[in-house]
């Protein structure tokens, strides 16, 4: 998990004024750990305007457009938790799993994440996580699934 999910990109007590603010924070986390160029953030916002990345279970998966792939330096995740919730086009989002992916790898990644969220207990555990170790344990399966 260490390659894909950098501990510095797990931010579990965030506040966001709205969806755009939340996506910007997600993008900033990916930029901060050196996974993406700053320009990637605006492609994440473009993606969100084009179609919501809400997937269910209080989780959204902000990521860039196809054009944004060139701005990805390495595949990575960022996990941002908003305990107060963020209105996501009428849905309530508590956790964002932001994705930087240059190639096709994100499909396995999304598939593994979806498998986790389909388990209601694990989805709840992710929404309630207050420490990075819990997030790493829960999402550890993603890297096993994509290895």
């Amino acid at each position, binding site marked *: 998990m260490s390659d894909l999910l950098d501990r510095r990109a797990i931010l579990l007590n965030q506040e966001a004024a709205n969806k755009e603010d939340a996506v910007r924070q997600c993008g900033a986390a990916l930029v901060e750990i050196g996974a993406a160029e700053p320009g990637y953030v605006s492609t994440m916002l473009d993606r969100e305007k084009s179609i919501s990345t809400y997937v269910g279970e209080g989780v959204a998966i902000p990521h860039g*457009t196809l054009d944004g792939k060139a701005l990805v330096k390495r595949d990575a995740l960022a996990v941002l938790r908003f305990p107060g919730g963020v209105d996501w086009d009428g849905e309530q989002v508590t956790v964002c799993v932001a994705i930087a992916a240059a190639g*096709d790898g994100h*499909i396995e990644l999304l*598939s593994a*994440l*979806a498998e986790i969220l*389909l388990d209601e207990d694990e989805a709840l555990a992710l929404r309630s996580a207050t420490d990075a170790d819990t997030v790493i344990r829960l999402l550890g399966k993603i890297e096993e699934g994509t290895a």
Partner: protein
Amino acid sequence: MPTRTVAVGSASGLHARPAKLFVEAAAAAPVKVTIRVGDRKPVPAKSMLGVLALGAKQGTEVILEADGDGAEEALNGLAALLARDLDASDA
């Protein structure tokens, strides 16, 4: 049961945007539609998480199934949607 087998046409596979468009179309269908890959367990086509969990890439063959009034029409529409490159209109 009416069935369609179709190869995913979207360049980036059946993930966020193409998956969302497909799921919305499936939710609007008058019948319950399931989707699966090979012999794996079918999932409701209107479930975003279920569809994402398939991990279907461009060219992956998926199997749609539905039963009841309007099933054939619904499957035709959804199969045509899957075969298209839904990323083509991407920003």
